[in-house]
């Protein structure tokens, strides 16, 4: 019962945040008189065409009215029409978001699979070479500009060595799997299409490593410090004193307790991956939300920018909610809310 109450409160909280986000984004995109119609129609458009376009997109209406139209639209699931692509924003998001989700999950997976063991390893060998190595690599990971890393990674992995493809989600001559979730890896598994699976996996490698390096560093550092704390605790000493095998002590008793703060950080990471995706997608020709957001912002396409920000803004609290639910299970004593 306590769980249900917690969930309700959180969902109401998220809804409140969404209203705030929509107002702020709407305000931001309307603070200047720059005219998206000019952007959409370009250099050669006649004044009459611009006027007609403004009327078609209701850009000539008062601001308050535009906001009301916009919000009532959202309540019906209508995010408006993109000024740049001329398509419903919801359709654009549906087309582009899965690519970003897939990339972000791959990056998250990298950070867990690499970051967790690295952190444990580092803690166990505190002060010795593996520890120094992990700490240096995570310091670099936390300090390297992702777009610069992407340039280096694509230059080496694709251009110089030729081990990995140089961008895109799937090979030019491999048909993408039929759309179910929009995640190529999942869809090709569902369709049993091994060619598509192999191709989409290999296309994920470089962008996921690029995007995931930062979060891997965060996870490794987090795991390291909480492991160190846990390994100093009495019950670990007790376990050791009881003569339990060191590996068992570390992985069973240590990591289990050290994991809680790490799980928390994963929720925060997921939100930040979306930001990193903007730059990573640019470098790797990844047809995702980040590239869509950049192009939309450049052309003052505020329905699209609003749509992206709303979606992005919902991902962060939802990811945190998921983490909190996991947390709830990991540690039933926690009382949250």
């Amino acid at each position, binding site marked *: 019962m306590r769980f249900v109450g917690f969930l309700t409160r959180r969902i109401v909280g998220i809804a409140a945040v969404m209203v705030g986000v929509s107002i702020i984004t709407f305000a931001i995109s309307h603070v200047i008189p720059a005219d998206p119609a000019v952007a959409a129609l370009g250099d050669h458009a006649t004044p009459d065409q611009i006027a007609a376009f403004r009327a078609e997109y209701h850009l000539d209406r008062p601001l308050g009215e535009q906001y009301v139209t916009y919000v009532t639209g959202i309540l019906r699931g209508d995010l408006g029409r993109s000024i740049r692509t001329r398509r419903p924003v919801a359709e654009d998001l549906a087309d582009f978001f899965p690519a970003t989700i897939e990339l972000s999950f791959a990056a998250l997976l990298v950070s867990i699979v690499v970051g967790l063991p690295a952190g444990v390893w580092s803690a166990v060998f505190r002060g010795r070479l593996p520890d120094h190595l992990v700490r240096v690599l995570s310091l670099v990971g936390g300090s*390297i*500009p992702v*777009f610069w890393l992407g340039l280096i990674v694509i230059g080496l992995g694709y251009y110089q060595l030729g081990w990995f493809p140089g961008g895109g989600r799937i090979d030019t001559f491999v048909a993408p799997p039929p759309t179910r979730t929009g995640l190529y890896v999942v869809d090709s598994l569902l369709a049993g299409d091994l060619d598509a699976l192999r191709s989409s996996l290999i296309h994920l490698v470089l962008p996921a490593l690029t995007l995931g390096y930062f979060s891997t560093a965060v996870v490794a550092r*987090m795991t390291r410090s909480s492991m160190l*704390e846990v390994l100093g605790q009495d019950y670990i000493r007790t376990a050791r004193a009881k003569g339990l095998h060191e590996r068992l002590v570390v992985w069973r008793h240590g990591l289990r307790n050290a994991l809680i703060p790490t799980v928390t950080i994963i929720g925060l990471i997921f939100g930040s991956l979306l*930001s990193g995706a903007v730059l990573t997608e640019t470098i790797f020709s990844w047809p995702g939300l980040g590239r869509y957001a950049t192009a939309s912002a450049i052309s003052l396409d505020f329905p699209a920018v609003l749509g992206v920000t709303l979606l992005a*803004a919902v991902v962060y609290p939802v990811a945190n909610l998921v983490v909190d639910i996991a947390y709830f299970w990991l540690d039933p004593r926690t009382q949250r809310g």
Partner: protein
Amino acid sequence: MAERAVAAFPMRASRVVARAPILRNPLNVTAIALIAAFTLCALFAPLLAPHDPLAQSLGTRLEPPSSAHWLGTDQLGRDLASRLLYGARISLFIGILVVVSAGAFGTLVGLVAGYAGGLVDELLMRLTEVFLAFPALILAMAIAGALGPSLTNAIIAIAAVTWAVYARLVRGQILSLRRREFVEAARSIGASHMRILARHLLPNAVAPLLIQASFDMGSAIISAAGLSFIGFGAQPPTPEWGVMISEGRNFISTQPWLSLFPGLAILLAVGAFNLLGDGLRDVLDPRLRGPLA
């Protein structure tokens, strides 16, 4: 950019503002030395730079590193080393401005929320949640897109996504401190609200703020470079590091140094601030001092 995760590193209450111990760790010394070096570069760029960072020479464009041009020249024949030195100025300036403005605003909001409590607290904390919910770069892009690309707008945008962390930090500190004896004592002898805030609560909340500020210096520099990279940042011909990488990327197979060196500069500068943040935390947070040092 993923800067928020840096901010999410665990911050713990601290009682002691330590003095010398920070210099005991060679890593911290390295960090401080690096930051000092960058600061010196920034302050004395006109003296240190071998050339005018804006002086063009089309006859000697795209030259590899040489004795005349230590790091080579760019597509307009400008000296890359000089541009990097002046770039330190811009990056440090961005970092300081973001941290000071976001820190000050966030601290104010946090103080008010933590001290006032009740409805005010509730409203302000919802507001910080709104800002924390935005992926930083996307909000910054929306702001920079609407206001027009410029360094100032990039700084505004980054500060706008940074302040909320400070608000939460300060509020948390205040909440844990306000029930403590010395505050109660101050209140009982009739000290004013302002006085309690200024004399008792704020100084005690300084340590975690310092740690956060150090990390944020680094992430502000990275964020600004990222915004510049996609065209929402510094104006040409400003020698901003992100812009330089962006300009250099089309020359990556022929003149790789054009994007390599500015990238290294960012890596070093941001790395130094992250190291300092680590060092400060180790020193200021007694619980972690041993293991992480």
